[in-house]
């Protein structure tokens, strides 16, 4: 009898091993397979704050493993894990909002804060500077390819709100990416 190497085992087999017998090696394989994408998404959603993103990833895996036996495989493991991660990221953003003022909203507003002459900003940093709501929609729609309906379900907002926030988010990003002279005259 030949044993399937972990790296070639599918997610479901690995998940069964984790849920059934707490197989650590199977878990590590799943972790290494899906964490880089989850971490990047969560990090972007949280505006590039790595410690918060790591906490979210950890908690996402704990919740996923705890509920793994009940997972019905109607979606892929990655989609399910992403959903858990996004919910946790939203919780983190809400906690942040409660503990400090939304200074970024004041800073950016709808037209976003004009960039100082000496400051060069790239797309990643521009996204990180967006208000939380704008950033979530823009990341999910323009970067991750979610539809407004999926975003609506995921973030528990109306489809119209998703579209509206995407519009504002794109405007804000363009403003942040504008050359300084154009930004001053805009």
């Amino acid at each position, binding site marked *: 009898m030949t044993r399937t190497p972990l790296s070639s085992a599918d997610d479901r087999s690995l998940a069964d091993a984790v849920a059934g017998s707490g*197989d650590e090696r199977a878990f590590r394989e799943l972790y290494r397979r899906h964490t880089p994408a989850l971490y990047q998404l969560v990090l972007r959603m949280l505006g590039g704050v*790595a410690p918060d993103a790591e906490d979210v*990833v950890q908690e996402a895996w*704990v919740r996923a493993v705890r509920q793994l036996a009940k997972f019905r495989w109607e979606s892929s493991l990655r989609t399910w894990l992403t959903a858990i991660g996004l919910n946790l990221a939203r919780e983190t953003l809400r906690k942040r909002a409660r503990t400090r003022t939304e200074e970024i909203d004041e800073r950016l507003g709808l037209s976003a804060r004009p960039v100082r002459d000496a400051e060069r900003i790239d*797309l990643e940093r521009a996204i990180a500077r967006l208000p939380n709501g704008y950033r979530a929609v823009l990341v999910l729609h323009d*970067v*991750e390819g979610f539809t407004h309906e999926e975003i609506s379900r995921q973030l528990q907002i109306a489809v119209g709100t998703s579209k509206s926030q995407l519009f504002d988010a794109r405007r804000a990003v363009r403003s942040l990416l504008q050359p300084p002279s154009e930004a001053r005259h805009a």
Partner: protein
Amino acid sequence: MHDDELTPEERAAMEALPRERPPDRALEERVVRALRAQGLLERPATLRLTLPPLGWLAAAAASVMIFAGGVALGAWLESRHTTQVVLDMHQRDAAETAALVQRTGSAYVSALSTLATFAEKARPQEMEPAREAAVNALHAAASQMVRLLPEEPVAVNILQGMARASRSDSLEAAASEPRRVVWF
């Protein structure tokens, strides 16, 4: 339209953003520890040698036996080598026996000749050990000849003559000093 479309450049820039980023390696261990702490993961099974006390004794005995077996095997291989060397040597001796006998005989006769040269000047007690050695050498040589060729008349006569002489010597020796024997 509520959300204006991205320009091709903007879309390309969005698509160029990385979709994956590996977190710090320590995070994996942190997550695993958290899962273990909640009883959701088991440590991977490691090969542990758990033996009862008698098992350890048996293991120690087995180790000694394996060591001794190794030594015995080495010794056997070495002895086989040695046996081969001795066998080769014997085969070589058999081939050279005639020459060796000839060389030894020449040396024996030469030694007796030298002894005869000194016999006239030397005192009888000084010659006795040499005479005894020469007689014993002759006796041993004749014995080997008879062993080699039982019917060999010269060797048989030498041995018979020496036996007679020995018997008469014994009678005389009983009344005189003990005989010194040179063994070959």
